[in-house]
């Protein structure tokens, strides 16, 4: 079974939570639907949602909440539904 790697389209700061006091959008092990928000990228005061490109189960986050990221950096892996 191939794992789908969701990569960053933008450089910036990757957040796993909608705001610092909230729970993460998703954790490893959670199921996810295509189009679900799994994180936010902040760059120069603009916020862009990161959405899952497939439905399935999140196996791993590759970057921490608040990490600096670059374009094409792997953010998380999702094991697609059969």
């Amino acid at each position, binding site marked *: 079974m191939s794992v789908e790697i969701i990569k960053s389209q933008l*450089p*910036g700061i990757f957040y796993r939570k909608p705001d610092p006091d909230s729970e993460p959008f998703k954790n490893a092990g959670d199921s996810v639907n295509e189009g679900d928000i799994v994180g936010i990228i902040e760059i120069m005061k603009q916020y862009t949602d990161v959405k899952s490109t497939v439905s399935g189960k999140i196996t791993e986050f590759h970057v921490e909440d608040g990490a600096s990221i670059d374009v094409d950096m792997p953010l998380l892996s999702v094991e697609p539904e059969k």
Partner: protein
Amino acid sequence: MKAARISKILVANRGEIAVRVIRAAKELGKKTVAIYSDADRDALHVKMADESVRIGPSPAKDSYLSMGGIISAAKDFGADAIHPGYGFLAESAEFADTVQSEGLIFIGPSAETIRSMGNKIKAREIIRAAGVPTVPGSAISSDSVEDALDTADAIGYPVLIKAAAGGGGRGIRICNDRQDLQNQWKIARSEAYSSFGSNETYVEKYIKNAKHIEVQILGDGVHQIHLLERDCSIQRKRQKVWEEAPAPILPGDVRAAIHQSAVDIARNIHYSGAGTIEYLFDTDENRFYFMEMNTRIQVEHGITEEITGIDIVKEMIKIAEGNELSITQQDVASRGASIQVRVIAEDPENNLLPNIGKISRMNWPSGPGVRVDHGLSVEYFVPPYYDGLLAKIIVHDASRIDALKRMARALDETAIEGLKTNIKLLQALSIDDGIMAGEFNTNYFEDWLRDNGYLKKVRS
């Protein structure tokens, strides 16, 4: 007002505006203290100040927005005044209050003025009381959409939903009809709360064909004058990109009436410091309306300095020392025309998405009538944490047509390598027929970007 000589200024900002304030302070014989976050360790403003202090980690909330950190830095370094620049804490009444109660001088208006103009609903009431027209609309205090619908029906669609605590073009939604307003109302209220900490909103008529005209003012608490107007209609996502002084194509009587109205407002609130009063000029109805007041130095102040010969940042410092305005209204005259463009870290080949990177080379224009305000240096890494404004290129010449040609020439001399910028786009804009004709409204630039293929799809 008591005179209190300032000897050392802490500049509570970064980038080009920090550099601008340091230059003014130096010319007045004041010492300067720069603050920086981890991302700005090698920034130009840090090198230019007499002293500098790390204020915290890169995110703005831990550094440039850290009131406590900034005030203790000012005390540690013996600064007697703080200049907030624009953005960050510049329009925080709480910060202005705290600076003062800690025995330091806040270079700007009183906390009370910042507070009353910062709430856009309150500001509209004060302005109406001063006899200046505001855009038709009204504050909606309840969560119920019914009141909003009634207001919208009375003023006619399209309407804008605005956050009372918003400003600077943020917290605004357009609604084209009843259904649209119904759909967006709740979202707008909760968005206002999460972004600005208050769900206070108001509904205002959306004026389709309008120019954004603003008037620079200066006051010492007793005397208030205007320094003519600027046209800032060329905007994307309500962020200005191209600014001119004086405004092209504005009927003479309207120009004079807008100036007078700005002075009336400034007098009414006993304004002290530099400020800007923003208006919408409805070109169909030939009427102008108050939009908002910014109680700080503005990004585009330089074009006003060019046509009037008045150094606004130096005036701010002198006013903060308790000096009376040294300029009278009769001293203010318009000389030639000035244009500013904003060089922004955005990719014209990729939907104008922001980008970051290390500056490997930069070539700035020079020669007659060209001024560049920037905070960059080679090897500096432009970080993702703050605004994408890299530099302001300002030209001044005898007439508008000369200034346009000078801008095109200046942009030809400009090059930045190491990250993507909008320079190409600005070059195209500087020779655009619509810009040349001066007949642009606030929608012109976004339409132009789509027509010229810079925006592949409509983005919110």
